[in-house]
């Protein structure tokens, strides 16, 4: 099975804590295999083996979820 990679999501380290990004990745784990790496002051989130095509709306929902988790971390 060919691995499908969604476009990476970038979250600024200064704004979003790693804890929030990881919590969101855990919550969305049923959508695919998440990988978080750090690059140039950003947390880069990549999704592999997505169960269904990841649309722009999915990406937006993930962003909002990270925002919610960030607020919880305050």
């Amino acid at each position, binding site marked *: 099975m060919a691995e499908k990679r969604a476009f990476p999501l970038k979250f600024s380290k*200064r*704004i979003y804590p790693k804890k929030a990004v990881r919590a969101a990745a855990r919550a969305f784990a049923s959508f695919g295999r998440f990988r978080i790496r750090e690059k140039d002051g950003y947390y880069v989130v990549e999704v592999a083996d997505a169960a269904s095509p990841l649309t722009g709306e999915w990406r*937006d929902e993930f*962003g909002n979820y990270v*925002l919610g988790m960030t607020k919880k971390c305050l």
Partner: protein
Amino acid sequence: MTITVNSKLYPLEAILNACYAFIDRAYFFLDEDPRHPHLIRVAIKMKKGTGNGKADALRDQFNNELLHCSLRHRVSKANKRIREYIIGRALYFVSPIQEGTPTESLPYADDPLHIAKPWEERYGRKKGVSTKI
């Protein structure tokens, strides 16, 4: 729609709280300006069914909420010590078991106030009242 917010004027906590207030109506994505790190870009995308015409109204409401959250943050910061003091005092006086309380020395079966005695034993039954069910 993107709004640029100066984090020197509005603290990051206030920006996050303001975004969170509208999370049911729009998608928010925050990023810092690479050339000016103190500037935070807030990308706002309306959710489906909320109506595109309401984007301008949301932007105005967001600006107001930003101001409100900023003020709340400032007040909260200024009152932090007194708030902690008040809570500390309140919790100190409601500690469940303090040393020397009479409950420690008395066995539970004792009834110095005679409150465990049934009404009928103390005052007798009322005349003419049937107890049959």
